[in-house]
Every structure is written in C-alpha cells, then in structure tokens.
C-alpha cells in the first residue's frame, strides 16, 4: 500500500494554518481598505455637494443684487421724467435693499481672495451710484434741474451700471471656475475610490480562491489519511489475529514437545531404576556369598573383593538410585506443567475467602506447630476464573510463605485483595526470610531456587504458579528484600472470558 511520509502531515498542517491566517489577514485588509475608501469618498462627496451649493448661493446672491439695482434705476429714471412721489417710494425701497444684499454676497465670498476685491469694488461702485442718484433726485426735488442737465443726470449712472455688470459677471465666472475645479477633483476621487474598491475586490477574490483551494486540498489529504488509517487498522487487526494464532500454535507445540520429551524420558528411566534394583539384589547375594566365604575359607577372600561387595557396589548403586529418582521428579514436574497447560480451563465464580480458608485448614497442623498465623485482611474481591488453577496458585504461594518463614520471629502470612478496573489484585505477604532482589526473576524459572537450601523442593512451585497465572491471562510480581519478608502480587482478570483451548 502507498504510504505517505509520516512527517509530512504535521508540516502540511502547519503550512495550512499559515496559509489560512495569511488569507484571512489579506481578506480583512481588503475589507478595511474598501471601508476606508468608502468613508473617504463619502466625505469628499459631502464637501463637493457643499461647494456646489456655495457656488449656487453666490450666483443667487449676485442675481439678487442685480434686481434692486435695476429696479431702483428704473424708478429713478421714471421719477426724473415725471416726479411722482409714489415712484420715489419705489426707488427708495429698491435702493434700500442694495447694501444688505451686497453684505450677504460679501459674507458668502469672504473666504475667496479673488472675490474680496470685487465685492469691495462693488461696494465702492454702489456708493458712487448712490451718490449720483441722490444728487439727481435732489435736483429734481429742488426744481433746479434744466432739460439739458436732466438728460445728463439720467445717463450719468450708465458707466457705473455697466462697470457693476462687468464685475458681477467676473464674480460669476470665478465661481464657475471654482466649481469646475471642484468637479474635476470629485471625478478624481471617484476614480481613486473605484481603483481602491477594485483592488480590494480582486484581493478578496484571490483570498477566497486560495482558501477554497487550500481547504479542498487539505480535506482531500485528510480523507486520504483517514482511508489509509482505516486500512492500516484493518491490517493490524489481521496481523494481531495472525500473531495470536501463531503464538498459541507455538505454545501448543511447546506443550506437546514438553509432554513427549518428558514422557519418552521416563521409559529409559524405568530401565535404569529397574536394573539398579536388580543390581542391588545381586549385590546382596554377592555380599552374603563373600560373608560365607570369609567365614568358611578366609584364604580365598581378598580385600578388594570384600570392599567391592560391602562398600563400593552399594555406594555406587545408592548414588545411581538417588540421581535417577531426582531425575524422575524433575521429569514428572515438566509433565505436570505441560499437562496443566493442556488442561481446558473453565471459568466460574469463585469465593476466594473460602479457598484461602480451605488452604489454611490443610496447613492447620503445621502452622500451629511452628506458631505461625495466616490472616485474611478485609473482604476479598469477587472473581470468575478457573477453580483448580486459582486453588493451585494460592496454595503454592501460601505454602511457600509458610515454608520460608524466619525462624527468629513468629510467622505471619497476610492475604489481601482489591479490585482495580477490570482486574483483581491479590497480595500474599509474609514476614519471612525474604528473597534477594537479584533472584526475583530466577525464582519463577523451572528448577531454580533462592537462598539457603534448607527446605525440600525441586524449584517447581513458582514456575508452576507463573505458568498458571499466565494461562489465566494475569501476571505475578514479587516485592521482597532479604530478611524482610516477601509480598507476591497477583493481577488477574475479574472475569476470565476467553478460555484458550490449546487443543483446538
């Protein structure tokens, strides 16, 4: 199967994060740019609108100035031709509006350095016009006006009026020029706004595209690794099953091997033991014969013959016998272990307290004799396991504890138990002679023992215990120091669910 470099996935994850953060930053930047551009443009638009309004106001003010000028002029001329007081009232009304209207215009154009001299000029011209008009009207009112001078007085205002017109037109032209400049600027800012908006939009589109592409790629990667993981998990399960089958097959083969070997070793042993006995019987016959010869014909007896019949042969035979008997015990131990391994285990609910009580009952006489005690501390947890195996394990451990007590102090063996998750932990603690930490592994090996060899045994018990504990799916450990007692801890599954049948 295709396997991606395992180091690539965290790296690509980091890269993805960086890319996404960059995209987000650029996206936010673009949005801020667009917002700033909009705000700026809004401000500029408002300014532009204000300037346009201003221009129209100025134009309006100029137009408003012309009306009273011409109205008052018309009224003056009419009065000069036919001096009617009503006409004079119209004149006074119109010319009274002149200066306030000019003030308003001056106020509007005060900020413009070009317009200010013009308004001043207008003020001067209007004052001049006023003076001429007032003089001509006074003349009419006095009746001192002649026909010739009347016409002259009437037309005296014309050059001033023309000049006023010119100045007013110049002012309008100036305002139009300003408006044109402002409109151009407005167009420019609009253009800038569109550029900014376009840039922001392009960035946003790029960000979106990048994000989508990155996420899609990442999602695809994720999907690929998920599929790969699933495939791996499947194959792992297969591998585990395969290995388990291999292991149980190997275990079965070892058991079978141990059984056959130990079994076949017994056949020659029968011969050795059998003929040793025959030899012993024959030796006795010989010894009796030597005795008789010694008694009846001492000359025939040699010292060698006597030694051979009485000492050498019996000694050799006794060594052969004790060695062979030991060998027989060892072979039987292996046979027992292998038979235990082949036994079908059947889990059932067990009362551990009752089992310990039974073991204590069988040891009753012995512990009374040596003044020892076996106590159970607190209630023991419930367990479902193989009765025979548990009984063997506990009785071996408790018997060992009693066997290797310290002569110097009253022996005490304590059995404790507790439940942890799906396991039962059992402790068999004693205050006996303890085990050297160097031997903690060795004591579980077949035929290996620790400490002073002052007790009978072949080094089989703990090997047997460990084999049984493993068979029950548990483990065993020891905690001990020389002279300070030993604690054996058992961890067994609360419920033995899957009895492994090596024969299957």
């Amino acid at each position, binding site marked *: 199967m295709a396997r991606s470099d395992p180091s690539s996935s965290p790296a690509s994850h980091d890269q993805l994060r960086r890319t996404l953060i960059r995209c987000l930053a650029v996206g936010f930047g673009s949005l801020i740019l667009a917002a700033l551009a909009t705000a700026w443009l809004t401000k500029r638009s408002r300014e532009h609108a204000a300037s346009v309004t201003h221009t129209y106001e100025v134009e309006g003010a100029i137009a408003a100035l012309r009306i009273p000028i011409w109205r008052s002029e018309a009224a003056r001329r009419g009065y000069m031709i036919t001096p009617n007081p009503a006409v004079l009232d119209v004149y006074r009304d119109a010319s009274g509006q002149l200066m306030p209207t000019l003030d308003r215009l001056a106020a509007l154009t005060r900020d413009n350095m070009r317009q200010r001299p013009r308004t001043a000029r207008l003020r001067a011209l209007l004052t001049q016009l006023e003076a001429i008009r007032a003089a001509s009207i006074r003349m009419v009112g006095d009746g001192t006006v002649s026909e010739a001078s009347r016409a002259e007085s009437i037309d005296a205002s014309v050059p001033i009026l023309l000049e006023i017109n010119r100045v007013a037109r110049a002012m309008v032209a100036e305002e139009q020029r300003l408006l044109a400049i402002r409109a151009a600027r407005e167009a420019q800012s609009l253009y800038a706004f569109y550029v900014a908006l376009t840039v922001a939009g392009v960035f946003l589109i790029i960000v979106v595209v990048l994000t989508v592409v990155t996420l899609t790629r990442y999602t695809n990667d994720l999907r690929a690794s998920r599929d790969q993981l699933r495939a791996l998990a499947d194959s792992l399960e297969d591998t585990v099953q395969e290995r388990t089958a291999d292991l149980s097959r190997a275990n079965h083969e070892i058991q079978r091997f141990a059984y056959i070997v130990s*079994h076949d070793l017994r056949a020659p042993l029968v011969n050795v033991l059998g003929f040793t006995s025959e030899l012993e019987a024959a030796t006795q016959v010989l010894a009796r014969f030597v005795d008789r010869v010694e008694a009846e014909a001492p000359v025939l007896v040699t010292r060698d013959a006597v030694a051979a019949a009485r000492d050498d042969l019996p000694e050799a035979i006794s060594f052969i016998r004790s060695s062979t008997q030991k060998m027989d015990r060892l072979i039987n131990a292996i046979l027992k272990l292998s038979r235990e391994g082949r036994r079908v285990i059947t889990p059932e609910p067990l009362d551990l307290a009752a089992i310990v009580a039974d073991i204590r009952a069988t040891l009753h006489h012995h512990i009374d004799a040596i003044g020892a005690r076996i106590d159970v501390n607190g209630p023991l947890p419930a367990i479902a396991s193989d009765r025979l195996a548990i009984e063997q394990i506990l009785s071996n451990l408790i018997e060992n504890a009693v066997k290797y007590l310290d002569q110097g102090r009253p022996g005490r063996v304590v059995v404790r138990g507790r439940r942890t998750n799906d396991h039962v932990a059992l402790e068999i603690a004693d205050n006996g002679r303890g085990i050297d930490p160097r031997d903690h592994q060795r004591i579980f090996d077949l035929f290996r023992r620790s400490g002073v060899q002052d007790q009978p045994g072949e080094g089989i018990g703990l090997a047997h215990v460990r084999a049984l504990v493993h068979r029950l799916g548990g483990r065993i450990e020891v905690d001990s120091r020389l002279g300070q007692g030993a604690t054996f801890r058992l961890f067994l599954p609360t419920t033995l669910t899957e009895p492994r049948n090596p024969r299957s």
Partner: protein
Amino acid sequence: MNSHHTVSIVMIEDDEGHARLIEKNIRRAGILNDITHFTDGTSALGFLFNSPDGPALNGPALVLLDLNLPDMSGIDILARIKADETLRRTPVVVLTTTDDKVEIQRCYDLGCNVYITKPVDYESFAQAIRQLGLFLSVIQVPEVEPES
C-alpha cells in the same frame, strides 16, 4: 490348570530392558508359560496372524502390548487384533508408560482388556508385574479354534 500352560504369552515391547524386567518379574510370580518377544509391530503382527506357532493358527494366547513402538502405534495392533474374527477373543494387556486419560479411554474403546501404566519406581513396577502374573495364573483364556 493344565490348559493354562498351553497359553503362550506374546510380548510386544520395543525396549529390551523393559522386556527383560517384565519377563523376570512374571517368572518370579511363578508363571512358566512360553513368552514370545517382539520389538516391533510388523513382525509381531506377522507372528499373530500368519505364523504356524502364532495364536491365529495355533492355540490360545495372551498379548502384552506396549503402545510406543518404532514402526507403528500399539493402538493399531490392538485395533487389528480386536477387528479379527479369530483373534478378537484374545486378551490384550496394554502395558505402557502413557498415562494420558484420552489414550486409556481409546484403548478400552478398542477392546483392550486391561490397561496398566508402567510405574517408574521399580518397586511398584515389579509389584505390578507380579500381580499381573498372579492375574494371568487365574484367568481363563478362550480356546482359539482355527478356521478350517
């Protein structure tokens, strides 16, 4: 009692030492019947079925059978004997080191008459064989009538 003396004992045992020890202890029990010894299955079967002196053709016999033989399993020999019309009444004593329960049951299922596990401890072994000898001295073995 006379007829007992005509019963020959066929011992099928590959281990010479075991054979010798068995014979010695049977003799010590006072059994004087002929003992014919075979160390492999093929020659034993040849004697049982085809030899003019063999039990199929000549007189009653008793078979002492070891299960671990070099060329075949003693169980095959037992099955052959018990399947044969003439020989199936011949008592078969299985005398072997195997003490596997399944094996023992199989032998009885096939018609084995007595199953004895050889004790490794010689005293027990000698005792067992002598008791077997006593047993042999009192059992009645059916006459084999050769088919004409």
